[in-house]
């Protein structure tokens, strides 16, 4: 068996979710090739070659791939993927965007967001917002899978020395053009890969009050997230949303502040190792999943917590 793994990267370095995806490939077992697609992405390809367990890196460096437009990279991955038994991508917004195109072009179904490899053709995945776990078996010739990063412990980013091979195929379908992007700038770690996450909910009251969470997070080296209620209320931007329809996180420590614990939020964080809940309502559902709960006014508790650690 040979497995093709799509690498998530920023042209210079490999993003963490790629390492979890290589871990899923290792659990399947076989020769692992990593595909780096981009414009000016040589440095990322060199970083990919160092990932533990990777035997070859394919690099498709072309202006048409600059913004990972699904129409172009979908066509490329479908062509390169024909000879593989499995094609994997992390279940990031990129992976979710282009990989179903690859599956359709190869005339196979995709299995989305696998959280465990049972055997090379059988996988576990959450359904109904994580309220049930399905074990599914694919009879398709090529298994096309997105991988939920929190389901797999990342492989080491160093220690490998894979050969790098350039791919000359240029696929510009002429269907789509990049216009602009607005990415939140932050010195804090990314939500998806952070070891500690501090999240605020509707109880924060407004966007300004999130400052106390930022102060706490900076002291802990943590990322800051939010519940859907806080995002919908306009306190913070949508890319901070933790939950089934936002980001799924599984840090070592998750601190939920003023979050009641709606089912869709729990789906996004209940695999965290340790959960702390701070809420003034002692009956809030968040306490049913928290290892440590503290009932009280978050505006007293959070500053105290920040001082004591």
């Amino acid at each position, binding site marked *: 068996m040979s497995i093709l793994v799509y690498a998530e990267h920023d042209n210079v370095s490999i993003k963490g979710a790629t390492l979890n995806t290589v871990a899923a490939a290792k659990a399947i077992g076989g020769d692992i090739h990593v595909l780096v697609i981009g414009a000016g992405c040589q440095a990322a390809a060199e970083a990919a070659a160092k990932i533990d367990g990777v035997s070859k890196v394919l690099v498709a460096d072309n202006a048409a791939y600059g913004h990972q437009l699904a129409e172009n990279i979908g066509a490329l991955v479908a062509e390169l993927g024909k000879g593989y038994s499995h094609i994997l991508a992390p279940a990031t917004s990129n992976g979710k965007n282009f990989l179903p195109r690859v599956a359709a072009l190869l005339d196979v179904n995709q299995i989305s967001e696998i959280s465990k490899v049972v055997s090379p053709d059988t996988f576990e995945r959450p359904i*109904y917002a994580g309220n049930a776990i399905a074990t599914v078996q694919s009879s398709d010739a090529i298994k096309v899978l997105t991988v939920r990063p929190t389901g797999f412990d990342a492989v080491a980013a160093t220690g490998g020395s894979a050969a790098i091979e350039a791919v000359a195929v240029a696929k510009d379908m*002429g269907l789509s053009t990049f216009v602009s992007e607005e990415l939140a700038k932050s010195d804090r770690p990314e939500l998806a890969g952070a070891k500690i996450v501090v999240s605020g909910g509707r109880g924060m009251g407004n966007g300004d009050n999130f400052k106390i969470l930022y102060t706490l997070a900076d002291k802990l080296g943590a990322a800051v997230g939010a519940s859907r209620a806080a995002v919908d209320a306009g306190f913070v931007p949508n890319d901070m949303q933790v939950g089934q329809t936002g980001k799924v996180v599984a840090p070592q420590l998750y601190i939920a502040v003023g979050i009641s614990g709606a089912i869709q939020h729990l789906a996004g964080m209940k695999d965290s190792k340790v959960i702390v809940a701070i809420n003034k309502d002692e009956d809030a559902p968040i306490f049913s999943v928290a290892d440590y709960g503290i*009932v009280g006014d978050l505006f007293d508790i959070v500053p105290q917590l920040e001082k004591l650690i």
Partner: protein
Amino acid sequence: MKALVAVKRVVDYNVKVRVKADKTGVELANVKMAMNPFCEIAVEEAVRLKEKGIVSEIVVVTVGPSAAQEQLRTAMALGADRGILVETAEEVQPLAIAKILKGICDEEQPQLIILGKQAIDGDNNQTGQMLAALAGYAQGTFASIVKIEGGKATVTREVDGGLQTVDLNLPVVVTTDLRLNEPRYASLPNIMKAKKKPLDTKSPADYGVNAAPTVKTLKVEPPADRKAGIKVKTVEELVEKLKNEAKVI
């Protein structure tokens, strides 16, 4: 231009789903069903584009059991002009649904196809992208703003870390994210009118599609239980537990 909207009948999002005792799936008997919330947003977007004079006709389609007519009637009460039910009692997986929708696109020639980004039952997030690939169309997934002007679509997409805006050729497949719009409620007169709107019934075979699944569900289980922990009285106690018991800070 004509718009095609695809919708799905799913367990209502307010229902807490339960796994069946024999682990074959989740309990669907006597459970309230509704239109998938992302699909409601898709219908709403098409209706708003019609109100702006950009869309001239809205065709709504679903693939599912006979009872899925209810969701087509709901979409028509919200403003869709006619419905197509591709009826099947069997489970149809995303690739086969995308092939059926491709068949409908070949017949209807819509310039704009809107779907929800995912259904809240299977959480697959595939059908729109697959349809776009099969038809050779551009796609604007996870859309939070859709503008149609000058013979193209400009779509702002919710991506990891922020927003991305792309220009897309028509015909285009758009999949909706939560913040694209807030769907309206159907008024009683519109619900009555919707009952008289045309609804065609077809089968997957009418579009030459073999709908047999290639992914088999072996079992469905409840997720691992997470036990409630303890409540601490003071912040000092919390910090002590995190340092010495949980050892996470």
